[in-house]
């Protein structure tokens, strides 16, 4: 049996820790866990879970790339790369026609433009407040007393979009409470919340522009209501790739791990 040449990407975000094991250009294992208090431990837990999923051991790994906000404490990684570069590479892998990425994570959102090779050409980030992030949706789900995973489905049943003007989490919370007190239908409020975020993200794109295909990555990308709101507000069609959009960053990291290892090997020969 030939020696295993496996690579890992570990993406520790503020809410979720993701890991992907890559071998022969294919994903052979992955994991998504909730990020705990210590980002180093969360990264290692995600890595071990992905290795188990892949039926591999740590010793099989040739190179590990760490990314996400937890990359600053990732001593297990051979190298760290920003989530912006990793998302671009991961989205390109999942959907090669991607030229624009909307990434909505736990505590920030990003607008990323890339070329046909998956290299970043421009980007803009919102990380000053919770608007347009998973955290915002969590707070709102709490106010609406529904599960975060049900938020999207519920919004699809709306009969009208109630305007929620604020994207400041604190103000939007009180705005939502007064809508509930007024007796408005929950679905209509929820769709309003999604539209408020979509408007905010649309503004972020004024800085970098949009080109098809548009890939929606990050944990929030699984929310069908958010997908629909983005499509309606931005007048775009989101790509429907196979594979988990929440893993895009970890996939990109694993691809970069493989590239870095090949580069190292070639430079060692030269």
């Amino acid at each position, binding site marked *: 049996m030939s020696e295993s040449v496996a690579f890992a990407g570990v993406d520790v975000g503020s809410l979720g820790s993701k890991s992907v094991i890559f071998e022969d250009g294919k994903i052979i294992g992955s994991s998504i866990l909730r990020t705990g208090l210590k980002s180093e431990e969360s990264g290692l837990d995600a890595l071990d879970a992905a290795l188990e999923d892949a039926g591999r051991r740590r010793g099989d790994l040739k190179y590990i790339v760490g990314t996400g906000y937890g990359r*600053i404490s990732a001593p297990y990684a051979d190298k760290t790369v920003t989530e*912006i*570069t990793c998302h671009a590479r991961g989205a390109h892998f999942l959907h090669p026609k991607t030229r624009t990425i909307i990434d909505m994570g736990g505590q920030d959102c990003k607008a990323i433009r890339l070329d046909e*090779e998956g290299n*970043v050409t421009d*980007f803009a*980030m919102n990380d000053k407040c919770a608007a347009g992030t998973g955290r915002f949706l969590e707070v709102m789900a709490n106010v609406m007393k529904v599960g975060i995973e049900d938020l999207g489905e519920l919004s699809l049943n709306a009969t009208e979009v109630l305007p929620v003007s604020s994207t400041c989490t604190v103000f939007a919370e009180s705005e939502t409470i007064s809508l509930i007190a007024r007796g408005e239908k929950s679905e209509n409020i929820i769709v309003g919340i999604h539209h408020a975020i979509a408007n905010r993200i649309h503004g972020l794109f004024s800085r970098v522009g949009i080109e098809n295909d548009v890939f929606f990555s990050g944990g929030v990308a699984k929310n069908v209501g958010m997908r629909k709101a983005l499509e309606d507000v931005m007048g775009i069609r989101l790509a429907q790739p196979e594979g988990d959009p929440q893993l895009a960053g970890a996939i990109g990291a694993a691809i970069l791990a493989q590239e870095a290892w090949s580069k190292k090997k070639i430079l060692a020969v030269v």
Partner: protein
Amino acid sequence: MSLQTIGKINEALARRPAELEKARAEGKKVAGWFNYNVPEEIIHAAGLIPVHLGTGGDNRLVELGARYISAMNCVFTRQIMGQFAEGGDEYIKNSDVVFIDVTCKQLYRVYELVRYYFKARAEILGVPYNFQVGAGKEYFRREVAAFAAKLEKISGSEITGQALRHSVDVYAGIRAAVRELERIQAGPETPITWHEVYDVIQAAYYLDKDTYLSLLGELLSEIKDAPANPKVKTDAPRILISGSVIPPGDRKVLDLVEESGGRVVVDDLWSGFAPYLDTDVEEASLEGIADAYLARHPHGSLPVLDIGQDKRLKNIKKLVRDYRVNGVLFHTLRYCDCFTFKAAETKNVLKTLGVPFLEIHTEYARSDIEAIRTRLEAFIESLGTRLEITSGLIGAGI
């Protein structure tokens, strides 16, 4: 190994406040100044000691300053108000008079407020909106003449033609030396880093001009034979920094660029290389100086309605070419409208040349450090990939 002359410059800086105090005790007057278009050589020729004022990077002073100026004013002006309020800045303390040119209106507000709250002796130097038209030039000539008259009154003696010629020569020597330093540090291998040159440029804020000129001469001859600094990464992406002021005391973004693996090779900051870039006084007269200041690299606060005519943009394009820049970092300070408003057009102009651009919008509080780090690292990663592609590493399948 650090350069000996830089050590000497730092020692001279440490001695400077005491020197100023002594000079004042002996009857000399110190003229502090803020902003961009105060013609320092005239202060020098008037026999006063010029000191460029204003520091950054201290959020405590910003908070203090915000008690006296609107929180919607830029953090730099808020910090200046904080400096006046606290009274701890050695150079402000030792200024007998403070001149502020009205290049940026936010500093005009500082002029009003330091007089009102702190009874500071502050004077204004008007700057025209339009540098191109005859009326603008005329206006600035009159303002410079009035400025010179005020200086004569303060010093109690006339500015002679001979003194003016000497001062113009000293400043021309300083500018030539700084240009040479900027050229040398940008070489592939260099004994002196851009950051060191930036600090040397800011030493000119405070030091005696003749001393400074001779220290620059020493530094140039020292680096002529000095070995290359191994810390300078020759393969790092080459970055131009533009945008809002980065004054002494504020090194937040500069440090982060270095930590992220980027190499700054040039800037057009008005607290850095901008005043040295193309200021050439051809005629040693008040009019000659006024005209030279208007003809040089303009400050971003000026409205330029015709982008095609904007000298600031033309110069940035030239610097990108001359310094083989891979990407432009545009630093904007919170509520510095002058430069924040110019970010989009600068980005668009550079885009036509295929030059990547990143705007970093920040303030002196340190809460956004990690957010800035992520942006900078991502930007430098993308510049690195572009460099690898052009050098053929990636095209070769690696």
